[in-house]
Structures are given as structure tokens and as C-alpha cells.
């Protein structure tokens, strides 16, 4: 089932660069879709369209449609706040807010006006377990989040966006600064997550793309070059440029 349908999405920043050109893409629910390709391909730009975080950037024009659960989220009249609760995001560098671990996890709930402690506690336990961090931090939730290791911080960021029960999770190179062990933990968590959510991941390497993807989309200079199930695109790419990239001939 398609969770998100992207139709003819074109995006231009105010400096004139067309970062996304006529992208059409169906994103399947309860699967991991990987957006990969060389730097500057427009992967992050696309992710930021999906939760309208591009509203903060210098965007000159966006055209096309992004249908999430039957609603065009590019429509200026939609409830952006509700959208962002529904579509969580994890950034490349872990950005923990300057609060305790607990404070980070309940931040979104508090923004939404949820004050009940029982709800907070439920959300904390559930999200930490999903992010594979519960065992490491459950007995020190009130310590400053900044005291965690980089890998733990990134999983906390993941847990933070899970705490408000989103339906879609966007991850932009979430493991780019992490050691192999932390990376494996995050990847394992993602494997569990896709059972519950729709996961869209920009991987930090082709290997990670191959490991994690159910579906994979190859982006080159703002264009979608090839989109196929992961098993196909990494073993038997149809496009020459995809093949060159996947086999490491350029990148």
C-alpha cells in the first residue's frame, strides 16, 4: 500500500538551483525506502519537503503534489504542525535539546499540550525500547542528554521523534557520524521500526543502502534516475549511471 505518492515534484531554491526536477515516486507503507546518490542530488531537499521543513529554507518555488494519506501536503492551507507530528525526522548530526533525557523525549508531547505524566512515561518507555536505548538509559532519565555518547544521542533523537507516535520517519544520514557498533544498533532498530511505520532513509553509503532497503531510489543532480526494489537495484541496475554509482565507479 502506498503511504506517500509524490507527483511531478520540482523544487527551486532562491539562488536559482533546481534541486529537484520532476520527481514522481510512490513510497510504500511499512517498508524502508532508501534515497541514495552522490552529494547534491537533492535527497535532503526531498526529505525536507515531506515534513515541510523546507518552509524554513530559502525556497523559490515548489510545484507538483505530495499526497500523504490522501492529502496534498504541499497545499499551503494544511495544518503543518499536525503534519510534522505525523512525519518525524532524524538529522545527520544528533541534536539533543539542552534538557534531560526525559525532557528531550517529552518535548513533542508537551508542545502538543499533553501534560499527563502517565502518558509521558508510556511514551518514554515505548520509544526508548523501539530505539534500542532503554537498557542503557532507563535508570538515568533525568541526566542531561548531552552527557550521552554520540551513538546514544542519535538513538535518543530517533526515540524523540518516535515518542509522539508518528506514521512516517525520515532519516537523513543518521549514522554518518557513528562508529560501526552504534550504526548496527540504529540499523537494527530501523528493521523493527518499519513493521510499525513508513521509513524513509538517506543512507551514508551504498553498502548501507543495500543492507537496509526494501525499495531504493537513485538520485543524481535533482533527477530520479532509477527506482526499484532494493534487491534489484543493487544486483541488477537498469540504468548505466545507477550501475556506475552502485559499483563504485563514481560517487
Amino acid at each position, binding site marked *: 500500500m502506498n503511504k506517500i505518492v509524490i507527483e511531478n515534484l520540482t523544487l527551486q531554491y532562491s539562488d536559482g538551483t533546481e534541486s529537484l526536477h520532476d520527481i514522481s515516486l510512490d513510497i510504500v507503507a511499512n517498508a524502508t525506502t532508501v534515497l541514495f546518490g552522490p552529494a547534491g542530488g537533492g535527497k535532503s531537499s526531498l526529505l525536507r519537503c515531506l515534513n515541510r521543513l523546507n518552509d524554513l529554507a530559502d525556497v523559490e518555488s515548489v510545484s507538483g503534489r505530495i499526497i500523504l494519506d490522501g492529502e496534498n501536503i504541499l497545499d499551503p492551507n494544511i495544518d503543518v504542525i*499536525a503534519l510534522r*507530528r505525523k512525519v518525524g525526522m532524524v538529522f545527520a548530526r544528533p*541534536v539533543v*535539546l*539542552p534538557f534531560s533525557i526525559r525532557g528531550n523525549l517529552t*518535548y*513533542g508531547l508537551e*508542545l502538543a499540550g499533553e501534560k499527563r505524566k502517565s502518558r509521558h512515561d508510556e511514551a518514554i518507555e515505548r520509544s526508548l525500547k523501539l530505539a534500542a536505548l532503554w537498557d542503557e538509559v532507563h535508570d538515568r532519565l533525568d541526566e542531561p*542528554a*548531552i552527557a550521552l555518547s554520540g551513538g546514544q544521542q542519535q538513538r535518543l533523537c530517533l526515540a524523540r521523534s518516535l515518542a509522539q507516535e508518528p506514521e512516517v520517519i525520515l532519516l537523513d544520514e543518521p549514522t554518518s557520524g557513528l562508529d560501526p557498533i552504534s550504526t548496527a544498533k540504529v540499523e537494527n532498530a530501523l528493521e523493527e521500526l518499519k513493521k510499525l511505520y513508513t521509513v524513509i532513509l538517506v543512507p551514508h553509503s551504498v553498502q548501507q543502502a543495500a543492507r537496509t532497503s526494501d525499495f531504493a531510489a537513485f538520485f543524481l543532480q535533482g533527477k530520479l534516475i532509477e527506482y526499484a526494489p532494493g534487491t534489484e537495484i543493487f544486483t541488477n541496475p537498469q540504468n548505466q549511471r545507477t550501475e556506475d554509482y552502485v559499483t563504485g565507479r563514481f560517487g
Partner: protein
Amino acid sequence: MNKILTKNRDLTQKLGFSLLTLMTLLTVIPIIGTVIYIIVQGAPAISWEFITGFPREGMREGGILPAIIGTFYLTLGTAVFSVPLGIAAAIYLSEYASENRLTRLIRLAIINLAGIPSVVYGLFGLGLFVLFLNFGTSILSASMTLSIMTLPVIISTTEEALRAVPQSFRTVSISLGGTRWQTIRRTVLPQALPGIITGVILGLERAAGETAPILFTGAAFFLPRLPHSPFDATMALPYHLFVISTQVPEMPIQIQYGTALVLLVFVLGMNVIATIIRSRARAKRQW
């Protein structure tokens, strides 16, 4: 050969450091010297009566209570007007306004406002608050005049403090479904608070020590009572110091230095508070 070069470099480095230390000392010594001189000269005048009594014998005896209370009221009044306005303006400029000609113009105006001589503010206050708005020579007029003088300091230091908060905090907060105001209120402001408080106190400190802006707007030469309302004129420490140093013949010198010492303690006290708040908040800061 190499050894000589290394030695040479060491020597230059040492020389450089000594020079810098010397320059630092040169700037610090006059300040410390002034403070010590005022303490030594003024301390003998300090007594319970001096702090809590009214001036007597044409101000040549007695205390300076009305001036102390007056400066306290003026500082408070300045805070009431300039702090909310200044912080609101800074939040608007740094968090809401987009970078364009208008905001650049506003910033330029704020910078230039900070450079205007204080006596000009005094004249402006006389024209606007005392005469045009008919607040008279009063604490209200003087506080408002001092507020206008203080605003640029508060706005620019607050803006700086807001800008020092990492942009990524805002992005994360927005991405979690926060509105702009929620983001500012819950994440940005608490982080910027120490910097804001420091700026506010620095601004108020300057206001507390100014003579020229209150000269035509609210300061009284001599008042044998405490002010009753914001529409009363008031004595104030800096103006009192000016009066007893230049306008009263046969003024005992120690009363002058005593007054200077009290003003100094008032202002330095605010400084100490600012430092304590800042270091406390630093210790708690989590990034």
C-alpha cells in the same frame, strides 16, 4: 642553526607575551586606582546616618537617602519600560523579521542610537516627555528618557544572546511540531537568558550612573523628602554628586567622595549580580 632559530622564536614569543601583559596592566591599573582612591577617600564619610538620613545644612551635613532612593526608583522605572520593550524588539529582529532593507535600517539605527551623547537624550526627553506629553519634571519623564538611552544596549545584547543559541535547536523544535513561539519560549529563550540578563543589567547600570539625561527631565537639586509618585521629581546619586561637587561652596570633600562611593557600590553591585547569574547559568548550560 635550528637551535638558534628556536631560541629566537621563544624570545619573540616571551617578548610578545610580556608586552601584552604590560598593556593589560596599563588598562587595569587606572580603574583599580580610581576605585581604591574613592574607597579610601569616601569610606570615612560612610555612616548609618549618611545612608539613611536626609541632607542638612545646605547638604553639607547629614545623609543622602533621597538620592539613593531616587536612583533606585529611576533604575526601576527604566527597567519597567526598557526591559520588556527591548527584549521584545530583539526577539522580533532576530527570530521573526526577515533580513531585508528595513531590518538592516533598524539595526543601523539601533547601533547609531547607542552612540548618541547622553545629553542629547536629555534634551529629547525634555521636549517629548516633560513638555509635549506634559509629564513634567518627574521620575516618569526621567525613566522614559533613560529607557530610550538604554534600549539600544538591551536590544543589541539580547539579539546577540539569541543568535548564540544554535540554529539546530530551532530546526529540531520545529520538526517536532513546535510553533515558532513555542520554540522561542521553550528552547531559545531559556538558553539565551543569561546573556539577556547580562545585557539588561549592563544597560541599567549605565542608566543608573547618568546625569545628563535626567538633568532636564526629572532630577531635583534638593528635595527634603522622598518622592511620593512617579510624577514627582527626585534627587539622584549622579546628579547629587555633580551638585555637591560644583554648585555648593565649602562642601566637605569627604561627603563628595562618600556619595561617589555609594554610587560606585550601587553600580558595581549590579555588576556582581550579573556576573553571578551568568556564571550560575553557564554551569547549568548543556551544550
